[in-house]
């Protein structure tokens, strides 16, 4: 047993060196969220709900619809982000399953690298994003009992002050 433990030790000793060898500009999904999304969506996924859609405890409901799942990645600021596919995939899973809390339907699968890489190549550019979202929200509220808070975005194009 002792010999076994000793055999494993050199490998263990190398671990910290491997971990610290990462380049300094690699961010965690949370770090990427703050730098690329948090300014408008808010540090915890809520800012001005009428001007920017809430993410907190809410964004996962779009996964109830196949086109909703695709929509989240095809949004221009997601698809056109300067992040590589792998970082964007981790970011999407952080947003949907961490910030989104339990809003995704039970058993939802995380986004895969391949899925995100394919979806971001067909960004939503020739549609009315607000209309497209409203149509999905209608279905989500009517058929999937999603929160009506989803309707706050788009109430007023210029955004009224956040409600107390």
């Amino acid at each position, binding site marked *: 047993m*002792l010999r076994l*433990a*000793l055999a494993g*030790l*050199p490998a*263990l*000793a190398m*671990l*910290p060196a491997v971990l*610290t060898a990462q*380049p*300094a*500009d690699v*961010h*965690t999904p949370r*770090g990427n969220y*703050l*730098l*690329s999304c*948090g*300014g*408008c969506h*808010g*540090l915890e996924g809520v*800012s*001005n709900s009428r*001007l*920017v859609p809430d993410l907190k405890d809410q964004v996962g409901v779009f996964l109830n619809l196949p086109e909703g799942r695709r929509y989240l990645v095809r949004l221009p*600021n997601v698809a056109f982000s300067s992040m590589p596919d792998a970082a964007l995939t981790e970011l999407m899973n952080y947003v949907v399953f961490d910030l989104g809390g339990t809003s995704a339907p039970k058993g939802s699968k995380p986004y895969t690298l391949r899925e995100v890489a394919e979806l971001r190549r067909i960004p939503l550019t020739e549609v009315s994003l607000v209309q497209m979202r409203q149509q999905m929200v209608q279905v989500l509220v009517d058929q999937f009992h999603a929160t009506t808070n989803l309707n706050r975005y788009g109430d007023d194009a*210029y*955004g*009224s*002050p*956040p409600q107390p």
Partner: protein
Amino acid sequence: MTSPIDKMGERLTRNLARFSSRRGFLSKLGVAMLAAPAFPLLPIARSARAAEPKAPGPKTDFERNSQTTDDTKCNYWKYCGSDGVLCSCCGGGHHTCPAGSEPSPISWIGTCVNPEDGRSFVIAYRDCCGKPMCGAGKSCWCDNSDRELPTYRSSLNNDIIWCFGNASASYHCSTAALVGEAK
């Protein structure tokens, strides 16, 4: 005639000799020596590493002249992307709005390097809104642009008045709130 203290000492030494094996001690020492490099997270190792510069790439002009003590000067380190009049000159702080104005819930977010430890931190550049522009002296007007992008990347642009989502969209002054370490 031996004293009780002598007896106690003798008993301790004999027990130590009887119940501890020299080989057992040596093997434990060996394991400890081998395992030691696997745990480099002692405070000393960490603080030594923290002193190394972590930000990638060469320093910007701003970073060569930044300081950490006076937040009423444009070269205070958290203002590396600030464009506007400093709230710390207007009765607020570098992360608080002056009385009567309120922070914009929407802002742009960038990173600044702390010159003391070379680490990057996430900064939210929120404007304070709802009052006419603060009339502070010229030295409080800053135009820094580290990691800021042109208007076609508007979510990372510092020429935008970020008060557009507030009840009153009038711009009063600029803050630079530290949000966390950039990692």
